[in-house]
């Protein structure tokens, strides 16, 4: 056996894995950052919206394949559309019924935080209780080509490449939407100053609703990506992904799209580094990553791409 070549293959596998994880984290973090941008709130149910997205995708798949549909491309497309619609609608309902009224009543930030945390529990428990046999892990269907490209001893799975490209496209698309379109301009305006944006004729409520639909939809994509990559989903997957996404958005710098992406890949990078390079058991990778997050936040208290603000008394 050629040990060093084996190691290289394993090493590349870790890198691919890390990049995939980073993409999922970044997608979740983008949602946190969008919500924070427009309403200055942390919506802690975001991770569980991801779970809802993944499970509605699975529901759509089961229903469609039950009806005899077997073309994977059509299936995948319909699965994504269904999951997107469910979470986008969920995001809008939550914003309309819960978050906008709370903001208007000037509820303390902490109450909003706890309410969204509890909302996350409601979503999680709803999936667990009302999805058939929801408390056990569910197999997620393989809808992408399963082949691999052989590069030396290392085989790159085609589905990983496709997922990664798809994730990158979504992030680029979101960035384009925010920076280059009229809608994005309106979102930026709302993020900068609610009052002024209203004076400029922007419909504040509908911009907030659109932002929530957008962020929640991205979470659904992240959930489906996670499902397609690991071929397994479970009702509590959103809890850790949400916490990691939140940490990523924070260490990147809240309200900044680049920060969210940086934070997501940084977190996955730290986990991969702990596994590949540190002489500690693999199980400690999260301990290492979270410890570095704490150190980073001590070093840059408002994130790596720092928020610009000044104190007002």
């Amino acid at each position, binding site marked *: 056996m050629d040990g060093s070549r084996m190691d290289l293959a394993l090493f590349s596998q870790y890198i691919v894995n890390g990049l995939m994880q980073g993409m999922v984290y970044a997608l979740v973090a983008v949602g946190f950052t969008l919500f*924070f941008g427009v309403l200055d709130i*942390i919506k802690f149910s975001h991770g569980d919206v991801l779970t809802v997205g993944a499970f509605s995708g699975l529901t759509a798949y089961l229903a469609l394949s039950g009806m005899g549909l077997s073309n994977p491309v059509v299936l995948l497309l319909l699965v994504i559309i269904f999951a997107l619609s469910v979470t986008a609608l969920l995001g809008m309902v939550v914003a309309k019924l*819960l978050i906008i009224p*709370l903001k208007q*009543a000037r*509820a*303390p*930030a*902490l*109450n909003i*935080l*706890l*309410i969204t*945390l*509890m*909302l996350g*529990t*409601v979503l999680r*428990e*709803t999936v667990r*209780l009302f999805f058939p046999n929801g408390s056990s892990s569910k197999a997620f269907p393989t809808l992408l080509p399963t082949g691999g490209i052989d590069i030396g001893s290392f085989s790159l799975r085609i589905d990983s490449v496709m997922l990664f490209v798809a994730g990158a496209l979504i992030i680029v698309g979101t960035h384009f939407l925010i920076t280059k379109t009229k809608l994005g301009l309106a979102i930026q305006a709302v993020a900068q100053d609610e009052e002024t944006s209203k004076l400029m004729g922007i419909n504040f409520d509908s911009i907030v609703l659109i932002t929530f639909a957008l962020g929640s939809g991205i979470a659904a994509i992240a959930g489906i990506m996670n499902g397609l990559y690991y071929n397994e989903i479970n009702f509590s997957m959103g*809890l*850790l992904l949400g*916490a990691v996404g*939140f*940490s990523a958005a*924070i*260490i990147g710098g*809240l309200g900044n799209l680049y920060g969210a992406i940086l934070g997501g890949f940084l977190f996955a990078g730290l986990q991969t580094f702990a596994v590949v390079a540190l002489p500690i*058991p693999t*199980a*400690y990778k*999260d*301990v290492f990553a*979270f*410890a570095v*997050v*704490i*150190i980073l*936040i*001590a070093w840059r*208290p*408002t*994130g790596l791409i720092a928020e610009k603000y000044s*104190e007002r*008394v």
Partner: protein
Amino acid sequence: MKILSNKIGIFAATAVLAVYVASLMHAESQLTVGILSVLFGSAWFIGDKTGASQMLDKGIKENGRFSSTMFLAAIIGVAIYLHDDHFNLLMLTTVMVFVIACLGLNIQFGYNGLLNFAGAAFFGAGGYTAAVLTQNTQIPHLLILLIGGIVAILIGFILILPVLRTRGHYAAVVTIAFSLLFRTLVEVSPALGGAQGSAVKGLNILGWEFNKNIDIAGLDISFYMNYFVLALILLLIAIAFSKAIERSWIGLNFDTVRLDETAAACFGVNIKRWKITAFAMGNFILGLIGAFYAMMLGFIAPNNFTFGDSLIMVSIILLGGIGSIPGIILASAIVIILPEKLQGIQEYRFLIFAVGVILILLFRPNGLIKRKMRQFPKTKAQGE
């Protein structure tokens, strides 16, 4: 209605409360539990609407010492009534453990505005200290409780730099990350028992075995009564301590830091000093009672100290009303007893609990019992 504001009224109210708690804890059938829960909710609602609650509130304020004594008597009464019931005594004591833990958190968060999402981690730090020390050493158990608190302070000091430097949402991530880190750490470290957890020896103070049933004159008393009595003593100390802090110049400094850091700093309040003080005090209480809890349960596992448990502690404080000691007591009782008692709808209890918390926060944003703030005497200049 007026009767509620004098001693007879307070006596009657606490007696009703004691009977209510005792019957709730004793209730077996889900129907009874359901009826009793609805009864409490409607009594609360009617009390609010008719002004009875305000009357009672006024009475309690005027007869503070009497009310506290009556309340204490009510708790002891319930415990005596449940004397041979292991499960319910354990639950009653667990409520008190959570009250004490949340009092610790309340010093950080209610008084000083320092949000700590790692309450369960500091609680667990005490618990694991107790596990390691009771198994490997002969250190007297009362001392172990103190060491549990000190270990929690020391672990807290690791976090002190990021805690001091960050604000708001950025501060939240520090303790959230630590909470997740702690749980994973205890889960994967074989020295602490890993995911399977670790056994903890029962308390033994000066030769008095806490894990033995008591037999006084033929009366069987559950061994949990030992823990109940010690927890009650600890609770009284914790309440006295919290109140002393709140009323003192330390509490005044805490309040200024919470209300406006920048303004407080301008008036020469040393923000860092008071944040460190509050953080250390709170963590000490959390660690101490965590050690007690571990010894009472006799067994701890990483699952006892998850991020979710930290959230439960924070929600107790928010539900009760930030900074309010009676609020913490009421909210702990609701949060601990209700899900336990609602076994019939066991599957749905977290869902119901979460919906309940959302509703309470929507309709009572200040919590169930609002904190009574310090009232400075009004001066003539303020237009009396």
